[in-house]
C-alpha cells in the first residue's frame, strides 16, 4: 500500500512528458485490513486467519457479550422455577424479588444481545469487504494470459457466492459454538435440578442433531437441482424471446412448447422431491423436542408425586429444552457450512494464488519523453507455454513518426504484434525495444501511457459517453473530449443522443451500434494523445463513408507519431507509409503498397476481399423497431 502511494507521489512530482492516470474519484474507503496467508501448505482456515485477526477487537467483544447474554438468559427459567417453588408453593420468598431479578436480567441481556449481534454482523461484513477488495485488486494485477484461460462468468460466481459462504462460516461458526457452549451451561442447570430428569429430557437432543445433519445432506443437493432446472427453463424462455423470429418463421412453436413442457416436468419432479424430503425430515426435527417435553411430563410428574421435585421444575425444563433446540439444529448446519466454506475457500485461493506473468522488474525505469522508435528484434511468440508459435523470427523496425500497416489473413498474427507492443504479453524469444529500452526494463505505467492502443473489441463501460472517452484521462476537459470525439467522427451521433455526451451507454445503458462503439473507442485513445499509436482493426464495423472522414482526422493526428495499423481494408492501408505483409507469423513482404502489389501475389489475394465492400448504407437498423 505505502509503496503504491509513494510511487504515485513520485509520478506526480516529476515533470513528465506524459500524464499518468490521475484519481478522478475520491477514495472513501480504505483497502483490506489484511491479506490471505500465502503459505499454500496451511489449511484453509489458517490461511484466512490474518483476515479474521484484523477484526479481532469487535469480533471477540461480540463473542464475549453473546456468551454473557446467553448465560443471563439461562438464569430466567431457573428463576421462574424458584419463584414457583419458593414464593407460590412454599411462600418463603417474596414474589417481587424474582420479578425484579427477571426484569434486570432481561434488560442487561437485551443490551448484551444488541451489541453482540451488531458487532458480529459488522465483523462479517468487514470480512466480506476485505475479501471482495482483495480479490478485485488481485484480479487487476493479472495478465492477459490469465484472462485468455479463465471465463469471467466463473470469476464472478466465485467472487459472489464463494465469498459469501466463506464469510458466513468464518463469522457464524464461532457464534454457533458459543451458543452450543450455552447448551452445556443449561444442561448443568438441569443436572443441578435433577440428574435423572435431565438425562430423560436430553435423550432426544442427539437425534435432533443427527437428523439435522442428515436433512441438510439431502436438502442441499435437491435445491441445487432445482436451481439448475430453473436455469434450464429460463434458457428456453430466453431463447424463445430473443429468437422469436426464428421460432415463428419456421413454425416451431409446437416443438418449443414441448421442450418447455419437458423442462417444466423435470422441474416439477425436483420440486416434489424437495417437498417429500422436507416432509420426511422437518416434522421430525420440529417434534423431537416436543417428545422430550412429553417424557419430562411423565417422569417429572412421577418425581413431583414422589416429592423429589417441585412443580416449577417442569416449567424450567420446558424452557431449557426449547432453548437447546436451536443450538443442536445449528450444530448440524455448522458441519454443512464448513464443508461448503472449505470448497469455496479453495476456489477463492485458486485465484489468489495465481501470479501475474507480466510484472515490473525491480529497478524498472520510466519511459520519459518517448520519441517513438520501435524495434522488434527476432521475436518469437506463442500463447501459453507449449502453444504453437504465432510469431516466428518477427523482425520489424519503426522509425519515430513512421506509420506501418500490418496486413495478413485472419490468424496470421497481426493482432498479436499489436498486443506485444503494449506489453500485454512478453515475447517468447527475441526482444522488443522502445527508444532502445527493452520493454521489460520499463515501468508498466509509463510504457502503457506512451503506447495508445485501440483494440478490435470496442468495449464500452456503463458510464456516460464523456466518461468513456475520458477513460484513460478522467480529468480531461469537456472541450478536449469533444475534440477527440470529432477527430474520431463520433461527435455527430453523440450530439444526437438524448442526453448528448452525458448519455449512459454500455451493458447497462443505451446500446450503440458496433461502428459507433468503435468510434468512441478511437476517441478514447486519441484523447490520451500517446506518442505511439496502435490501431488493431479499429474501424472494421465503421462504414466506408464515415471511415473516410475519420481517416482525414487521423492523418493529421498521426503526424509525428509512430503508428502501427492492423488493417483489413484498402482505405486503411492508404494511411500508411509502409506495408508489412504477415503470413503464418512471419514477415513475407515489406514495402510500399505499390511495391507489394507488384511483387507479392499473396498481397493481392489478401486485398481481394476489399473489392466487394461498398456497403450501401450504414448499419442496417430495422426500420420499424420501436
Amino acid at each position: 500500500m505505502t509503496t503504491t502511494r509513494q510511487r504515485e507521489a513520485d509520478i506526480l512530482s516529476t515533470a513528465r512528458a506524459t500524464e499518468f492516470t490521475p484519481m478522478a474519484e475520491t477514495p472513501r474507503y480504505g483497502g483490506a485490513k489484511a491479506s490471505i496467508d500465502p503459505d499454500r501448505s496451511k489449511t484453509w482456515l489458517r490461511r484466512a486467519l490474518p483476515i479474521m485477526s484484523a477484526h479481532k477487537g469487535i469480533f471477540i467483544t461480540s463473542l464475549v457479550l453473546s456468551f454473557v447474554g446467553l448465560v443471563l438468559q439461562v438464569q430466567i427459567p431457573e428463576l421462574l422455577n424458584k419463584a414457583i417453588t419458593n414464593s407460590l408453593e412454599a411462600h418463603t420468598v417474596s414474589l417481587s424479588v424474582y420479578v425484579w431479578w427477571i426484569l434486570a436480567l432481561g434488560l442487561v441481556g437485551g443490551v448484551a444481545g444488541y451489541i453482540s449481534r451488531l458487532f458480529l454482523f459488522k465483523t462479517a461484513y468487514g470480512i466480506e469487504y476485505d475479501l471482495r477488495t482483495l480479490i478485485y485488486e488481485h484480479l487487476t494485477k493479472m495478465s492477459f494470459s490469465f484472462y485468455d484461460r479463465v471465463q469471467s462468468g466463473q470469476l464472478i460466481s466465485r467472487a459472489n457466492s464463494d465469498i459469501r459462504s466463506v464469510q458466513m462460516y468464518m463469522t457464524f461458526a464461532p457464534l454457533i459454538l458459543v451458543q452450543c457452549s450455552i447448551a452445556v451451561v443449561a444442561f448443568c442447570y438441569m443436572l443441578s435440578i435433577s440428574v435423572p430428569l435431565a438425562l430423560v429430557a436430553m435423550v432426544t437432543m442427539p437425534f435432533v442433531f443427527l437428523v439435522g445433519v442428515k436433512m441438510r445432506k439431502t436438502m442441499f443437493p435437491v435445491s441445487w437441482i432445482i436451481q439448475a432446472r430453473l436455469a434450464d427453463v429460463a434458457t428456453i424462455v430466453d431463447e424463445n424471446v430473443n429468437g422469436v423470429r426464428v421460432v415463428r418463421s419456421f413454425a416451431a412453436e409446437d416443438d418449443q412448447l414441448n421442450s418447455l413442457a419437458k423442462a417444466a416436468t423435470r422441474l416439477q419432479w425436483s420440486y416434489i422431491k424437495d417437498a417429500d424430503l422436507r416432509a420426511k425430515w422437518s416434522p421430525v426435527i420440529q417434534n423431537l423436542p416436543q417428545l422430550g417435553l412429553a417424557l419430562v411430563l411423565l417422569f417429572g410428574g412421577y418425581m413431583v408425586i414422589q416429592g423429589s421435585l417441585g412443580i416449577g421444575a417442569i416449567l424450567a425444563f420446558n424452557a431449557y429444552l426449547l432453548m437447546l433446540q436451536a443450538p443442536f439444529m445449528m450444530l448440524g448446519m455448522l458441519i454443512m457450512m464448513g464443508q461448503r466454506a472449505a470448497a469455496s475457500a479453495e476456489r477463492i485461493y485458486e485465484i489468489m494464488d495465481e501470479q501475474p506473468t507480466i510484472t515490473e522488474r525491480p529497478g524498472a525505469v520510466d519511459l520519459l519523453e518517448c520519441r517513438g522508435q520501435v524495434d522488434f528484434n527476432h521475436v518469437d511468440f506463442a500463447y501459453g507455454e507449449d502453444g504453437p508459435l504465432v510469431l516466428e523470427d518477427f523482425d520489424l523496425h519503426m522509425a519515430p513518426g513512421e506509420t506501418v500497416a500490418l496486413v495478413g489473413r485472419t490468424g496470421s498474427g497481426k493482432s498479436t504484434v499489436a498486443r506485444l507492443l503494449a506489453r500485454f504479453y512478453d515475447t517468447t524469444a527475441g526482444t522488443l525495444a522502445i527508444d532502445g529500452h527493452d520493454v521489460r526494463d520499463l515501468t508498466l505505467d509509463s510504457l502503457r501511457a506512451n503506447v495508445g492502443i485501440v483494440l478490435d473489441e470496442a468495449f464500452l463501460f456503463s458510464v456516460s459517453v464523456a466518461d468513456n472517452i475520458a477513460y484513460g484521462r478522467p480529468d480531461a476537459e469537456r472541450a478536449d473530449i469533444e475534440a477527440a470525439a470529432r477527430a474520431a467522427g463520433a461527435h455527430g451521433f453523440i450530439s444526437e443522443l438524448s442526453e448528448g455526451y452525458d448519455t449512459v451507454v454500455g451493458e447497462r445503458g443505451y446500446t450503440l451500434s458496433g461502428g459507433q462503439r468503435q468510434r468512441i473507442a478511437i476517441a478514447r485513445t486519441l484523447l490520451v494523445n500517446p506518442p505511439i499509436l496502435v490501431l488493431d482493426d479499429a474501424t472494421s464495423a465503421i462504414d466506408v463513408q464515415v471511415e473516410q472522414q475519420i481517416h482525414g482526422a487521423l492523418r493529421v493526428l498521426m503526424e509525428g507519431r509512430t503508428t502501427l495499423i492492423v488493417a483489413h481494408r484498402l482505405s486503411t492501408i492508404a494511411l500508411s507509409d509502409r506495408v508489412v505483409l504477415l503470413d503464418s507469423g512471419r514477415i513475407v513482404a515489406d514495402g510500399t503498397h505499390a511495391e507489394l502489389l507488384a511483387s507479392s501475389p499473396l498481397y493481392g489475394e489478401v486485398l481481394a476481399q476489399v473489392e466487394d465492400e461498398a456497403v450501401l448504407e450504414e448499419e442496417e437498423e430495422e426500420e420499424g423497431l420501436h
Partner: protein
Amino acid sequence: MAWGGGGMGGGGGGPIMGGNAAGRGAGLPFGGIPSELQDGVDTLLADEPVHPDPDLAFSQRSSDQERKRLTLTRLLTEYPRTLIWASILVVVISIVAQLGPKLTEIAINDGMSPGHKSMLVVAVVAVVYLVAVLVTSVSQRAQVRATGRLAAWVMNDLRVKVFTHLQRLSLDFFTEEKAGVLMSRMTSDIENLQQLLQDGLWQFAIQGLTMVVITVILFLTNVRLAFITVVLILPVLILISLWFRRSSERGYDRVRDGIANVLADLSESLHGVRIVTAHNRQRHNIVHHRNVVGEYRDANNYTAQINAVYGPGTQLIGVLGQAALLAIGGNMVLHHQLSLGALVAFFLYLNRFFQPIQLLVQQYNTYQQGQASVAKLRQLLDTEPSVMESADAVELGNIRGAISFDHVDFGYDPAVPVLEDVNLRIAPGETVAFVGPTGAGKSTMAKLVTRFYDPTSGRVLIDGFDLREVTLHSLRRQLGVVPQEPFLFAGTVGDNISFARPDATTAEIEEAVVAVGLTEVIERLGDGLDTVVHERGQSLSSGERQLIALARAFLAHPRVLVLDEATSNLDLQSETKIEAALDVLLENRTAVLIAHRLSTAMRADRIVVVDEGRIVEIGSHAELVAAGGRYAEMYATWERQADLEGHRAITR
C-alpha cells in the same frame, strides 16, 4: 487448476443433467456441480423416473378454458381434492400442536398438586401428549407433501400456459425492452408464486390459526389473565414486527442495489480488462471498486442495526412479559384466583405466541409479492396478439410460391405509415432483391410476407390466398427466413440445423451441411454435428453462424425464402462460401432478398428499389442502369467509390 471448459467443480455440467434427458443448456448457468454436493445429487437423480415425452399441441387460438381470468383462488382450486385435504391438515396441525401446555396444566392441577396427586392422571396425560406429538408430526408430513405437490402441479400448468401465450403473441410484443419483462414473468414471478403456494400461504394459515387457538385456550383458562397477556404483549410485538418489516425491506433494497452494483462493476472490469490495462486504469478502478463495495458494506451494516434491535428486542419483550406474568399471575395464585397449573400453562403459551407473529409478518411479504406476480401474469395473459388466426382459417396446401402485394398500406403505428400503396407481383421461382436506404421499408415488406404483421389496408397474397385466411402454421411451414443476425439455440450444431424439422434424419442433416458448404466447418468442430453450441455460438465466427442458419433454412425445404443479408464484415473465404450456399438455396425457390450490397442485388432476377415506403423502380440490373433512375445513381456512386479507393491506395 481446472479452469477450462466450464468445469470448475466435479465433472463439469454433464452428470447432473445426464441420464434420461440431456436437456438444453444442461445445468447452465452453473459451471458444474460444486464438488461437495456431487454425491448427494447423484443419489437423488438415481431415483428420477423417466418422464414421458410431453405431447402438447400448440394452437394459435386460445381455448375458453385458457381465457379464464387468472386469480390466486382459481390457481388454488385447480386441484380441489388436494386443496381440501391440505386445509383439513392445516386445521388439525394448528389445534393439536398447541395442546402441550394445556395437557401440562391438567397434569399439574389434577396429578401433581397437593391433594390431587395421581400417577394415573400423569401417565394418561403423558400418553395423550405423546399421541398429540405423533399426530402433529404425521399431519405436518402429509401437509408438506400435499401442498408441495399442489404447488408443483399448479406452477407446471402455469408455466406451460404462459409460455403458450408467449408463442401466440405477435412480434411487435418482443421488442428489446420487453424481453427482460417477459423473462421475469416466466422466472421470478412464477417462482414467487411457487414459494407462496408451496409454503407461504399454508404457514400463513397455520400461524394465524395458531394465534387464534392459543388466544381461545388462554381465555378459556382464565379470562382476566388472558386479557392482560393479550393486551400487554400483542400490540408491542405486532408494532415491533411491523417496524422491523418496513425497515428491513428498505435495508434489503439497499443491499440488493449494493450487491448489484458490486457485481456489475466486477463484471465490467473483467469483460473490459483489456481496455482497463491499455488505459492504465487499474488504480482508479480499485478506488472505485472499494467505494462500491464500501457502499454495499454500509447497506449491510444498516440491516445489521435493524436485526440487532429486532432479535434481542423481541427477546426482551418476552422476558418482560414473563416478569409481568409472574407478578400478576403469581399474585393471583397467592390469592387462589388461579391454579398453579394454569400459571405454568400461561408461561408455556406465552413463549409460543412469539413465533407465529414473527412468521405472519414475514409471510405477509410473500403473500403481497405473490399477489403482485399474479396481477402481472394476468396482464400478460390478457394481452391479445395483434396478428390473429381467423376462426375459419384454412390449411394452405403445397404452394408454388407466387407472392403479390395488392395496394398494401402499413404502419407499426397506424398514424405513421411505413408502406404506402405497395403493389408487387413475384412469380414462382423468381428471386427479387429489395434495395433502398435505411428506413425505406424493405424489411417491413419482408415481414408482411411472413405475416409477422398484417397490412393496415390492402392484401398480401400467396398463390392467390390472402395470408389472413390461411392458418399460420401451414403458411410458415412453407417459408424459410434467414435473419441478418443468425440466432443459434443452445444445443448441438445438429439440433440447430434441424430446428425446423426435429425429426430429420442424420442423412438429411448431412445433406444440408454439404449443400451449403458447411462440411469443412463441421469437420473442424470437436464433436462434429454433436458439438454443443455455447453462448449462442460465440465460439463460431459470424460466417460460420450464417452458414448454419442457411443450412437450417435448406433443411426446412421452404417454397419461399426470405433472406436478410448480413452486413457484418465477413472475411473473403466465408463470403465466397455463403454466396455459393445461396446459389444452391435459391434454386427453384421464390426468394425475397433484403440486399445491403449492390453486388448481391445484382444477382437477383429483378431489383425493387424502395424509398420512403413506396416502390420507386422495378427491373433487372441492366434495365435499371439503362433507365438512369435512382438505382443507376446508386450504382454509379458504388462504382466511383470502388475506383477511388483502389486509385488512392495505388498512387500512395
